């Protein structure tokens, strides 16, 4: 796996404010509604994700904490025993305000060189469904039907 294909980039425009996006990606009440039901808490020091049964799904350091613009944290796929053995990768969230009350949210999942299975697992419907679910939640106040599962 080369550096370039150890990187994935996703982008979605959301009609909301940067503060709302920030809240939605860092607080468990929100993430449970669009992120495969994971309850995710992000603080300046740590990124922690728990499954619906309270098992640990993710645990990593936070490299950049710049609300409501940029968040960079470590990613470890602890929700799957095989993926959990892989090396940690990195997720960057960037929120930019556009004209017309629109936010552009860009998610870059990189440093996946040591985590090829994680790379395959999060690509395609993985990040795509998380981001469309997040957009639906922020724009309609409701999760996508079936999108929370």
């Amino acid at each position, binding site marked *: 796996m*080369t*550096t*370039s*294909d150890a*990187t*994935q*980039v*996703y*982008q*979605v*425009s959301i009609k909301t404010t940067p503060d709302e996006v920030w809240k939605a990606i860092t607080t468990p009440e929100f993430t449970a509604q669009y992120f495969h039901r994971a309850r995710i808490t992000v603080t300046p020091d740590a990124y922690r994700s728990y499954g619906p049964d309270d098992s640990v799904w993710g645990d990593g350091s936070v490299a950049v904490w710049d609300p409501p613009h940029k968040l960079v944290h470590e990613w470890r796929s602890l929700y799957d025993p095989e993926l959990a053995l892989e090396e940690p990768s990195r997720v960057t969230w960037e929120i*930019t305000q*556009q*004209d*017309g009350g*629109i936010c*552009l949210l*860009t998610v*870059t999942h990189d440093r996946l060189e040591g985590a090829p299975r994680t790379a395959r697992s999060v*690509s*395609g*419907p993985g990040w*795509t*469904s998380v*981001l*469309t679910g997040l*957009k*639906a939640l922020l724009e309609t106040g409701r999760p*996508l039907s079936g999108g929370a599962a």
Partner: protein
Amino acid sequence: MVTYSSGVQDDDDRVFKALADPTRRRLLDRLFEREGLSLTELESELEMTRFGVAKHLRVLEEAGLVLSRRSGREKLHFLNAVPIRLIHDRWIHKYAEGPASVLAELKNSLEEGDP
């Protein structure tokens, strides 16, 4: 960076227009197989000038279907499937159940049944 100053309808229009071209769909297929390709890498498989490929990539970028990142001297291209998923959710999902899926299944079974 893509700018979304207009409404949802315009976003959809841009995505449908971008998809309505076989060369652009091939570029997306290529980026689906392997992320992070340069213009030179994308160009090598198409019988088209560098300028032509760059023009198609620009249409895809404006529709938000392709995102790019600088890596040293190179500009690498990545597939962003989120707009396609949104169109799927907004339009196609509505018709995926009921009569439309019966017809789709009929089409599949008839086509598979061809000698």
